[in-house]
């Protein structure tokens, strides 16, 4: 038996449009996904914003009822046996919410421990251990409202470990953190991995998935477009090089022209304050640079470089530049 078994899972959201003549609009958030997670595995679910990652995790943590398909956690159905699942899992959703800001970190943990039915004697021992694990030992007595975003996120992790769950669902645990905060959270996740916890992690940081996950499912528009180890996924782009071109205000028309060039595989744009980084995947490597620069003739161009592809590039290719 797999720890997590997902079969053809679907979730449709209904929203109403209009005031006088109301119409119901259906949005397919998760569109028939299937995957398994093994005991003790750190499994990544990757995709751009709106791909269906959080919706999937909410269905697996019993907080949302699927529209179709099935999902089982430790053999229990997420709809009919939600109570059996809740005592055995821990979950955190990205962001600062979900804690009582006017209480101290320790009070938050004491309260949540009672809700997880942790014995008071065990709670007393475990809280200092968890605060130590997440690096909050010296701040536990302080009110949460004074914590930084990273500290709140670490407290979330401590909260989710109070009842020593078999499975952890971590939804974008490093979202919005500075590089130091993100690194600290990844270290905590590595520690949990070494304790053989089964972890399902969602992130859109490819380096994070590359560094942590044993297997990765790439999800786009509610569907899984690839599922393999990070190394195997990188093979998707092994014949390509990535050309990075710094540009200052590139019009959509020119981007479309570049996309149509025969040697161009994918094009994506990253916004960097006043400028953008154009990322072009091409099998031609450095030879693609002159024709690309010719296409950008009317645009101010900064630095240009060519590099080996990473997992992020594989991801960009898999989701067709939809990032």
């Amino acid at each position, binding site marked *: 038996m797999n720890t997590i078994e997902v079969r053809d899972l679907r979730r449709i959201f209904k929203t109403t449009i209009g005031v006088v003549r109301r119409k119901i609009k259906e949005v397919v958030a998760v569109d028939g996904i299937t995957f398994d997670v093994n005991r003790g595995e750190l499994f990544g679910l990757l995709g751009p914003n709106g791909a269906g990652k959080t919706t999937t995790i*909410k269905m697996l943590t019993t*907080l949302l009822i699927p529209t179709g398909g099935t999902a089982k956690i430790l053999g229990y159905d997420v709809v009919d046996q939600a109570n059996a699942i809740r005592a055995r899992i821990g979950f955190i959703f990205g962001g600062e919410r979900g804690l009582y800001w006017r209480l101290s970190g320790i009070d938050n943990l004491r309260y949540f421990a009672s809700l997880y039915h942790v014995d008071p004697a065990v709670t007393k021992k475990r809280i200092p251990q968890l605060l130590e694990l997440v690096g909050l030992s010296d701040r536990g007595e302080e009110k949460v409202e004074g914590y930084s975003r990273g500290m709140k996120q670490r407290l979330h992790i401590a909260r989710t470990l109070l009842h020593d769950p078999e499975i952890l669902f971590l939804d974008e645990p490093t979202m919005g953190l500075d590089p130091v905060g993100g690194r600290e959270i990844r270290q905590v996740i590595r520690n949990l991995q070494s304790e053989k916890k089964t972890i399902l992690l969602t992130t859109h940081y490819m380096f994070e998935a590359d560094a942590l996950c044993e297997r990765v499912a790439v999800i786009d528009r509610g569907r899984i477009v690839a599922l393999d180890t990070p190394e195997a996924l990188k093979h998707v782009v092994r014949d390509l090089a990535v050309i990075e071109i710094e540009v200052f205000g590139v019009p959509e028309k020119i981007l479309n022209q570049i996309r149509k060039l025969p040697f161009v595989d994918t094009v994506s744009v990253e916004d960097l304050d006043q400028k953008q980084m154009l990322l072009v995947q091409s099998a031609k490597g450095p030879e693609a640079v002159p024709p690309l620069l010719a296409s950008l003739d009317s645009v101010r161009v900064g630095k240009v470089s060519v590099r080996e592809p990473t997992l992020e590039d594989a991801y960009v290719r898999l989701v067709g530049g939809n990032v």
Partner: protein
Amino acid sequence: MKPGMLKTYLRVIKLAFIFTIKQAMTDAFVIFGIFVQPLIIAIMALFVLGEQGDEIAIFIVVGSGLTGLWDSVLFQSGSSITQERWTGTLEALVGMPTPLGVIVFGKNLAFVTQALGSMIASYTLASIIFGYPLSVESPMLFIISVILTVLSLVCLGLVLATLFVLNPDVQRWQNGLEFPVFILAGFLFPIAILPQWTTPLSYILAPYWAAVALHLSSSAKPGILEISTPWAMMALLGVIYLFLAFWLFKKMLFKARVEATLSGQ
């Protein structure tokens, strides 16, 4: 329920109680609703009715205290689930093995118990500032009435909390429900002066029976038979509210899981 679960749930209620009090005492709206507003009502009532004699003063103290209790049920208990949704803690609570109703029970118990402070504040005002010689005529009966009042109002708060989540349109009437209950429950004057058709409405409100029991036991020495009617009604209504809340919680949580409304985002 598994063996030992009652003890676990009692512990949850205890901690929900303690931590809710800790948080509420730093909320200015709570302080106003529970302590300041009942004091204003007590001052006005003492000026208007105080000349009728010393015995009316204890009636005013209990009545204005009851207004604080009802405000607490309506605004704090009624919003207890909605508030968790807006702070982002509702998902965490629903995803835990403790039933949400047990947690909300502990929170509501804290809100209502804390609101008893408004009665103490009114008592202090009337006795120290206005100089009325206040005494509770039947202290034991009064204490039992207070306990039954708290429990029945906590159960009513569970019903309101779920109704306000199930139908946000109802919550828009939250402010509008404040004064009608002051009047229908007879906090500051008897319901006998109201039109007769309103009497059945008063009878299905635990606050009405709470007012009857508290006024009787504080202002007179009622016979056990006389006071047992409001006590029995509070107990009966408390049980009815509890069953209704149990059903509403199931309905509300299923609806929230279908419509994805747990996170409030």
